[in-house]
């Protein structure tokens, strides 16, 4: 789908125990709404991200289900409490089944 890697910003990759960590993420994706018609009058098929999840190792932190009202190149900002170290794994899945992943290591200060 795209070769541009996700843009990930983390407020603190070495947080204190219980500290609220903020993530800002953005991927490159057309988020084609399915409402548009091309120059030849044919509908352009819907192509949007339908699912995102964030896990710290095996702990599920967050599931996000965007719809057509979410902007192109979807931006998502979320927070979680750092209770254990681990690898934060983020996965985006679109309605063609394509996935984009990103990882950040979290170590407790």
């Amino acid at each position, binding site marked *: 789908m795209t070769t541009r890697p996700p843009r990930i910003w983390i407020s603190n990759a070495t947080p204190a125990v219980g500290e609220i960590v903020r993530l800002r993420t953005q991927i490159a994706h057309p988020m084609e709404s399915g409402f548009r018609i091309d*120059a030849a009058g044919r509908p352009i098929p819907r192509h949007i991200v339908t699912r995102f999840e964030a896990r710290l190792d095996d702990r599920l932190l967050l599931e996000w289900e965007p719809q057509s009202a979410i902007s192109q190149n979807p931006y*998502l900002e*979320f927070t979680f409490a750092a209770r254990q170290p681990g690898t934060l794994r983020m996965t985006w899945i679109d309605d063609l089944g394509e996935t984009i992943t990103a990882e950040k290591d979290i170590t407790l200060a």
Partner: protein
Amino acid sequence: MTSSRESRWRPSRRQILMTGPALALAPLPAFAQVTTTARPQPDAAEADRIAAEFAAGALPLPEGLVLDLPVLGDNPGAVPVRVYLDRPVTPDYWCAEMIVIAELNPRPLACRLRFTQDTGSADLAVRLRLIRSMHVRALARMNDGRVLTVRRPITVTAGGCGM
């Protein structure tokens, strides 16, 4: 002497003159011809239905949830929206699920979010595309089954970029 010099530059002058009509006949960029079947909802009825389905019988309480929106959405293709709880999450007070509704969009449900007790927080920011000025609404279901809601208006400049 003079005639041979003229014959050397005359063809290029003709080429220059020909570029005018050639440019006029060039097709318009493709994006100018793309249209959309997206139409705004006539009222908030569909938004109310989505909210009622989410609340599942609970009475949504207009408290506890904060919705940050700009005063003016100068780019309706990317309107920054943030939703969060107005007090910290604890093991006894946490949010299980949240939805954001763009009331008059063709499909009003903008996104759904599920948290777990492990998240330890409930704070979301996304960018919406809005087809016109409208109210944006958010609902949150807490761990004890209570449903919180907040609703705010937003004015956008022009409609539905990319929709």
